[in-house]
């Protein structure tokens, strides 16, 4: 199974945002942000788009699969 790679943590830190703040913005739990940053959770398209919208980037810039 291809591994999910993300630069979510990097983008979040660049904007000085905590995991809690990001979780509140996209209405999910902090634990989900944690696992998203580690590439351990495959998000739904809606969640991926919501997170990408917060950072003003395209979904492909935020998430990709290591194939």
């Amino acid at each position, binding site marked *: 199974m291809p591994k999910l790679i993300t630069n979510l943590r990097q983008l979040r830190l660049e904007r000085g945002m905590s995991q809690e703040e990001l979780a509140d913005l996209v209405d*999910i739990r902090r*634990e989900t942000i944690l*696992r998203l940053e580690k590439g*351990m*959770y495959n*998000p739904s398209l809606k*969640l991926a788009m919501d997170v990408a919208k917060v950072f003003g980037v395209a979904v492909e810039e935020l998430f990709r699969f290591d194939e």
Partner: protein
Amino acid sequence: MESKRLSLNRLKLVSLIVASTGSVVSFAYCLFFVDSLAWQIVYIVCLFAWVFASIFSLVSTTRGRVRSDEMSRHNEEEASSVAYRAAQTVLMIAVVLIVGFGMDIAISAPLLFGISFLLYAVQSGFYLFLEKEGIKADAKADH
């Protein structure tokens, strides 16, 4: 506002404690015929706690009072799937024992409650296991 909502993990932990206790108490009666006053008290307490936890869980979840998201719902679906397969296995074993081996198994209330408690414990326990697995992996990845 967000933090005032009840944690689904806490609700599942309470469910697991109630279900595990209920399961042990019910099977103690079925297998070892334990029927003391203390047993009856624990049995009744577990039954009421189970009904209360089930109704409270249903009402809180449908009214959005429980803090959950798509990952917790995904874990809950996985756990329900495991509980469903466990239910199929229990029924299959019962059918084999009754039909295949001709065993005379009395379907009593404690037996039914015991099986229900056990499946409830499997569901809650597996959900907590999935949540904990992720947390453990997060901690490992941090080092």
